[in-house]
């Protein structure tokens, strides 16, 4: 492990050198493309130069689509033949991301590579190409509560970067990138992590959630508030649910595809079964289901919480539902229930 220092201009050249050998992805600003008039959209996209890397704002969507795209072809059909969809591209992809999102990938790995003892090959082949360059994050954005979720720190990265004024400091952990940075001046740089968020949540410390918590009236307010748009699911770095969909081409009905598309526990139709029966019709029940998964039952299976506290669900909710406040409400209600 070694650390280097560059000026922005020097680092820009390093960045271009890196770009020559692999694809670079990071948060990028799209002016005027935001949801409201005269606002920008920040999302993960391919970077063509250092100046495109957005460091001032949290991305609207997470980087999870790099390993788990919103819409992915699994098979191509010709008549009765199933042909595996080929990999779209080869080579390494360097992703510039923050500690919470690195922890998010750890949770995606748990679901796609560990759960049920089967490795999802489509996820795996994309995931193996990713290399993480951690953007040092010492100050919270709005709605961040990573410290409460213990995902403010990360060590699974190839390199860590601090952008400070005109200087760029780099810690290199992965030998394969040592050569890329070796032109820099040696430094003692070690990344720091945010130690306190403005938003704090009280994660319930419970092994078995009492049944009263499932039917508790605390969920009723979400029946009215939530409109089942699923933005909290799609923006979440740890939501992994999907549905498979087959389609055929309109000009060749014998040809088509089997795709998997993101699905979400807040969306209508997620629990639909044969003959039209379904579960969790009420939005409050869906909120309860999601909340417990993120801060309670995932932990029972894997030993740590699913939610990483990136706060994107709160950033994007059109009904201003705060997931952070919901967690606090669960803890407060649980204390009431247990105290009875």
């Amino acid at each position, binding site marked *: 492990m070694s650390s280097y220092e560059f000026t922005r201009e020097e680092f820009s050249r390093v960045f271009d050198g890196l770009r020559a050998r692999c694809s670079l992805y990071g948060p990028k600003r799209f002016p005027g493309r935001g949801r409201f008039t005269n606002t920008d959209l920040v999302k993960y996209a391919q970077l063509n130069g250092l100046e495109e890397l957005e460091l001032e704002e949290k991305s609207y969507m997470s980087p999870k689509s790099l390993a788990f795209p919103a819409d992915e072809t699994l098979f191509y*059909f010709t008549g009765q033949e199933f042909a595996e969809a080929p990999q779209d591209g080869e080579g390494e992809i360097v992703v510039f991301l923050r500690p919470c999102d690195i922890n998010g990938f750890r949770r995606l790995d748990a679901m796609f590579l560990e759960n049920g003892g089967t490795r*999802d090959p489509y996820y795996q082949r994309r995931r193996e190409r990713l290399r993480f360059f951690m953007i040092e994050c010492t100050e919270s954005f709005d709605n961040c509560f990573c410290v409460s979720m213990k995902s403010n720190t990360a060590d699974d990265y190839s390199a860590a970067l601090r952008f400070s004024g005109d200087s760029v400091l780099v810690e290199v952990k992965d030998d394969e990138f040592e050569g890329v940075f070796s032109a820099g001046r040696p430094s003692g740089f070690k990344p720091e992590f945010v130690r306190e968020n403005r938003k704090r949540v009280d994660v319930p410390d419970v092994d078995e959630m009492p049944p009263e918590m499932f039917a508790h009236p605390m969920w009723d307010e979400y029946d009215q508030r939530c409109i089942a748009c699923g933005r909290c699911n799609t923006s979440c770095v740890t939501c992994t649910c999907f549905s498979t969909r087959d389609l055929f081409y309109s000009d060749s009905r014998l040809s*088509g595809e089997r795709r998997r598309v993101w699905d979400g526990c807040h969306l209508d139709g997620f629990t639909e079964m044969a003959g039209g029966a379904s579960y969790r019709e009420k939005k409050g029940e869906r909120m309860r289901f999601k909340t417990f998964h993120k801060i309670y039952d995932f932990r029972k299976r894997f030993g740590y919480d699913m939610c990483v506290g990136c706060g994107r669900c709160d950033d994007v909710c059109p009904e201003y539902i705060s997931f952070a406040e919901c967690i606090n409400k669960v803890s407060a209600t649980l204390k009431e229930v247990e105290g009875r």
Partner: protein
Amino acid sequence: MTFNPYRPFPARITCIRPETDCEFTITVEATASMTPGQFFQVSLPRVGEAPISISDFGDDWIQFTVRAVGKLTNALHELCTGENLFIRGPYGNGFPMDVLEGSNLVVAAGGSGVAPVRPLIRRAMDGRLPVRSLKVLAGFKSKEGLLFSDELEECQRCGHATVTIDRPQDGWCGSTGLITEHIRALELEDPSDVQFVIVGPPVMMKYSVAEALKLGVPADRIWVSFERLMSCGLGKCGHCKIDSTYICLDGPVFNYSRAAGLID
């Protein structure tokens, strides 16, 4: 990819037997090791994929009993003998055959829930699953909805089965009334010494379990099977998760002592 768990294999249809107006049993050629209560992901290219439980199997064949109620199942209804079905599996745990062996076995199934317990009943009937005694309760909405009528009739003749329809109908001289009433009327020598399997629509399972408990059957001797529309069968797609349990991995068959705590 060296191994792709999403890739189904073609299975040639050797027989299609209509059961009711909209239900039919498809037999396909396939060799796989499985146990009653498990399911396959069944698909047709360009139409879709859905989990369907095994309604019986042998060394080189599998049967699926399907109700045409959706995009895929309607398309399955159109298939002919000689065509291919695409399947992957089996998935799930299946019934605990070691526990059921040698027991006083009671099976209560409603509607399409009879399909997953059919391999159990057939094995208990012909001795492949040795049991001390067998009692089958099969409930249907109407006589038109009767599945596996010949087999259930045979089972009735041997004194093992009660087949009931919800309300009396012209031309039906068998039992009537909801299955719960028939569970209530069961004369069990020792309710604490049975293994009680209950499979059917959610409401039927809920009230049938309640009746079985009232009879004095211990919760840990009741077995239920859950249905979910899953997209993977592998613990990835999230559709079948309840609390930290995945129906496709840990079920679909659950001991009631565990199922009781699963809140959707």
